[in-house]
């Protein structure tokens, strides 16, 4: 009953209530945006417990930075930026770690895990997406994740990633070529 009333609140009302320490209000924000965060984090890092850990950190960071949220951008954009930053930091951390032990090329440094899925059909579709993303250059992978898994326009992608529109457009073309070649081999 209480949760039901929170579901009807808009984002700014939930933010205001969360800032006052309202646990249920922040819980509603998590419920509302966890799928969006999962798409970004799992698209970039793969399907593993580490992805869930990063996902939790996204919302923890959000909670402690809610006071900085001015409401000029949409809450979803604000959360998405946190998710992208934390995910890219994790990739950098992994890159540094692997570079100490491996002389492999950059692409191989970010190998991520693909967990087992429930049914055969789901497993196949998920595995195609995960494996294709895994084989992509990380700078293309983030563009593809924003476009393919989040459905963002080129302009929105540029805004979230803080990149010029032209850069996003050129990376999108090159990412499509790379994706074609990867999927052709699978």
């Amino acid at each position: 009953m209480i949760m039901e009333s929170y579901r009807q609140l808009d984002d700014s009302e939930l933010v205001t209530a969360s800032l006052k320490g309202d646990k249920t209000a922040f819980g509603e924000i998590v419920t509302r945006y966890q799928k969006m965060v999962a798409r970004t984090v799992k698209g970039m890092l793969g399907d593993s417990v580490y992805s869930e850990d990063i996902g939790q950190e996204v919302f923890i960071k959000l909670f402690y930075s809610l006071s900085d949220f001015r409401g000029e951008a949409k809450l979803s954009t604000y959360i998405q930026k946190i998710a992208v930053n934390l995910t890219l930091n994790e990739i950098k951390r992994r890159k540094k770690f692997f570079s100490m032990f491996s002389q492999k090329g950059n692409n191989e440094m970010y190998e991520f895990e693909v967990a087992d899925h429930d049914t055969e059909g789901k497993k196949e579709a998920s595995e195609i997406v995960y494996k294709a993303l895994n084989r992509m250059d990380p700078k293309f992978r983030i563009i593809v994740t924003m476009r393919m898994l989040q459905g963002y326009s080129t302009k929105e992608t540029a805004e979230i990633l803080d990149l010029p529109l032209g850069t996003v457009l050129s990376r999108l073309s090159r990412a499509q070529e790379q994706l074609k070649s990867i999927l052709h081999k699978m």
Partner: protein
Amino acid sequence: MNISEFKDLLIRSLDKESDPAGIPEEIERAGAVFNFGENFQEKVLGRIFDSGLTVVREVEFIRNLNYVFYRIALPGVAAIVLLLISLFLMEGSFSFNSVLGLGNGTEESIITLLTGI
């Protein structure tokens, strides 16, 4: 949707001219679902409200500590091995006195060294 149609959908999603708004739902309908595990919300709320800020900082600290550890672990081990090798070459043994640099010294020579008598 068969596999080749699914692959086409993935490639089409990157067309500059296409509207990507409905693509995530189509991908999800094909079976590629992205979500966190059960009780994700409870875990997040638990980490924030039950443990407080300290835990968040602790997690950050542990992650940074791990990172620093990996950076210093290998050079550290290499330095220790080099030290032991040079010690063995200079002193001829790994005795306690060798480690302290007293391999060739006697008590009298140390007293002489310290007191000048």
